[in-house]
């Protein structure tokens, strides 16, 4: 796994705030998968990026919020504007904090249900970083670049909004 790149300084192209409800996984996956597709990722890569986000959200719902459905999770996605194309996904919650070093994949030789999420995220994404979120909660940032020889089509670059909406 490569070194984690510096977080983009500009605003994300996409932001979504969702409740910690498993029924909201599908729209979150669709949003991110479609964005990855527009950046030029192939179908398999788009599916895997959606899966990595899904697994991250499942962990935040199950472990961060202990399956409570009223927790807040924020997803931000950046076009890294690299060549080949790449994206960064930041997932943040306001749940309990754990030692980032303790979030590790389990031994796969132990065939049992559960505990595969962290392994899948690390296998799929190029870089993965768990940190404490300032003000409480956890944050997970992960990046992926197109691994094939495909290059960003000229029309595929996601344009930035001029201003950031005030909240």
């Amino acid at each position, binding site marked *: 796994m490569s070194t984690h790149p510096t977080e983009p300084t500009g605003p994300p192209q996409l932001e979504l705030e969702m409740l910690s409800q498993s029924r909201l*996984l599908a729209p979150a996956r669709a949003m991110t998968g479609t964005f990855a597709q527009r950046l030029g990722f192939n179908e398999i890569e788009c599916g895997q990026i959606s899966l990595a986000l*899904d697994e991250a959200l499942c962990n935040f719902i199950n472990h961060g919020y202990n399956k409570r459905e009223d927790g807040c999770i924020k997803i931000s996605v950046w076009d890294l504007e690299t060549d080949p194309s790449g994206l960064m996904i930041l997932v943040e919650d306001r749940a309990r904090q754990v030692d980032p070093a303790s979030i590790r994949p389990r031994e796969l030789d132990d*065939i*049992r249900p*559960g505990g595969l999420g962290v*392994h*899948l995220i690390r296998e799929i994404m190029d870089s993965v970083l768990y940190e404490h979120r300032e003000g409480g909660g956890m944050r997970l940032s992960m990046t992926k670049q197109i691994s094939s020889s495909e290059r960003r089509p000229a029309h595929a670059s996601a344009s930035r909004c001029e201003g950031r909406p005030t909240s």
Partner: protein
Amino acid sequence: MSDTDDIQVRQEPTNGGMILVPIGEIDLSRAPSLRHHLSTALDERPDRLIIDLSEVPYMDSSGVATFVEAMQLARKNGAKLILCGLQDRVRSIFEIARLDTVFTILNDTEEARSA
């Protein structure tokens, strides 16, 4: 669990067993419903339970965990559990989780019936 969290599962008898055909995406919200269908089918003690995944376009690790549970229950009951018809996206999660060699995964129901 709300109605939208229920997964539709078609059930077909086969020689000495049963074929289950889940329809739609399998994620954390639908895994409990799938688990119920699988355990109900295994409670009937079939010799062979074939899961045709050809109509499942997406699965996350919650779905995989449900099939690991089912495989363990099937082994305990002396039943043979076979997965078949996996779409590429679904097959890739079994491969990344290195479970593609743990499960019996065949191309289609025809192959599964004669396995």
